[in-house]
């Protein structure tokens, strides 16, 4: 009964794969100096595990075993390929003898390997879409097909993107290292941008029928947690908090029919309180550092919303103040727009419309759907029906997202 005896081991190997394959890969890339060689070695190591563990039992430290096995197989393969006959003395046996402590024993350098992998995948010399693809492939272990599907990109295009990124790492010699403290702020920005982009692609899917693609958001939160564990910089905590606080509203922001529900109209009893508690705790921790940046401030804004029982009970004064801080850290017309909406809630719709009109008059955000949607909503509240209608029509013309378009059309119909 071969099947029944191997099944539990096969399951054990699967569990080890899920838990450790990314760490093993991260270490193998350092030891072997090449992404493709390391991936092949990872594959060979798991193949060896499937052959040897049923016979010899699951090793006490499976991760170390896999790193050593992968390294052994890769070096063996390289030797065979380059016909290094003189060094062939260890290459003949089929089994892997694994007592290679130097490769893995140092927990700290193994943790660093995961950071090395993240920073290398998010190296700013790589194209932004390649950074995203490579991070999801190598750090998260998604398949090329899964990534292609999530980003509505043809799989061959995505595969090509990953191949090009890997060859650039090799040919330009992008090193496998954690940046020095002097370089860290800029390099960390790139990593955070990739994680937030993945999150947003899952949360606000920029096009298509479905409003959200939950697995991408979950992947981004997993990445955020990993980074917070390995490198607890204030902005890392801030970004993780921001993602958790947004994610806490996932259930409430779409109706059972898949329609968009605005923050003001959401059933706040459906917000995930555990995520809110975790997110709020992280915001407080980041704010205490006094070195926080744009992600932390946005998370703080989100946390203020999370505390309020409804839109009317929200501390809009606090929110406007936080937007002022955000404008100082990271000025942009979109932040100004969000501030205008908060001002409208604090001082009345009229004040908000004036601020939005100022932005549009400057020529900013004229093609940004949410600027017109916000203006439409405020005009509606002021009873300026014609202005509201024109703004809704403009917003509808600009949106590429089906649920959002239907939401705007409903609002327009209610005028």
């Amino acid at each position: 009964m071969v099947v029944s005896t191997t099944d539990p081991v096969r399951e054990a190997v699967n569990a080890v794969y899920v838990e450790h394959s990314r760490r093993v890969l991260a270490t193998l890339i350092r030891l072997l100096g090449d992404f493709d060689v390391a991936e092949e070695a990872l594959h060979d190591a798991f193949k060896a595990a499937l052959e040897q563990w049923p016979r010899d039992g699951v090793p006490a430290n499976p991760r170390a075993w896999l790193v050593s096995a992968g390294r052994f197989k890769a070096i063996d393969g390289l030797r065979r390929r380059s016909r290094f006959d003189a060094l062939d003395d260890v290459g003949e046996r089929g089994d892997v003898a694994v007592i290679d402590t130097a490769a893995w024993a140092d927990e700290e350098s193994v943790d660093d390997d995961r950071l090395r992998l993240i920073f290398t995948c998010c190296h700013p010399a790589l194209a932004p879409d390649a950074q995203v693809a490579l991070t999801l492939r190598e750090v998260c272990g998604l398949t090329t097909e899964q990534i292609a599907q999530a980003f509505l990109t043809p799989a061959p295009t995505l595969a090509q993107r990953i191949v090009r990124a890997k060859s650039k790492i090799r040919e330009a010699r992008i090193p496998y290292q954690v940046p020095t403290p002097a370089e860290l702020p800029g390099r960390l920005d790139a990593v955070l941008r990739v994680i937030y982009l993945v999150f947003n692609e899952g949360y606000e899917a920029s096009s298509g029928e479905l409003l959200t693609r939950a697995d991408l958001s979950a992947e981004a939160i997993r990445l955020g947690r990993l980074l917070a564990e390995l490198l607890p910089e204030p902005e890392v905590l801030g970004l993780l908090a921001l993602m958790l606080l947004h994610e806490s509203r996932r259930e409430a922001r779409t109706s059972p029919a898949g329609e968009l529900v605005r923050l003001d109209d959401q059933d706040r009893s459906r917000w995930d309180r555990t995520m809110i508690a975790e997110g709020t705790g992280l915001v407080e921790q980041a704010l205490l550092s006094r070195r926080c940046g744009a992600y932390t401030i946005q998370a703080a804004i989100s946390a203020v919303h999370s505390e309020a029982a409804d839109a009317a009970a929200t501390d809009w004064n606090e929110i406007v103040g936080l937007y002022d801080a955000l404008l100082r850290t990271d000025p942009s017309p979109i932040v100004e727009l969000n501030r205008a909406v908060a001002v409208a809630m604090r001082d009345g719709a009229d004040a908000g419309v004036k601020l939005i009109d100022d932005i549009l008059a400057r020529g900013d955000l004229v093609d940004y759907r949410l600027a017109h949607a916000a203006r439409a909503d405020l005009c509606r509240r002021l009873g300026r029906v014609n202005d509201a209608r024109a703004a809704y029509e403009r917003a509808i013309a600009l949106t590429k997202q089906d649920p959002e378009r239907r939401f705007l059309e409903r609002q327009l119909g209610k005028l």
Partner: protein
Amino acid sequence: MKYLCLVYLEEEKLRAVPAKECMACGDGFRKSGILVAAEALQPVATAATVRVRNGKVSITDGPFAETKEQLAGFYLLDARDLNEAIHMAAKIPPAREGSVEVRPVRELTP
């Protein structure tokens, strides 16, 4: 590994960075052992472009690219990896005025 750092500047900014500063940068690179070669270039108007087509040599003035920035000089560095090359490129004074393209050198094999 060698990296060619190509310095691009708008024509009117060619003399915006004092020569003294550029020479000091080159000296610094030389002392740290990373410098292979470095030169500043005359404006693109002084250039000639050579092509050979069907065995025939043609010579034109230029090149006149669409972009306003032109190649103003170069540093050939022998760096450990791209990160070191980028770190050094950021110290090249004209990086403040224009841009520096960091290109890995392709080793030709027969």
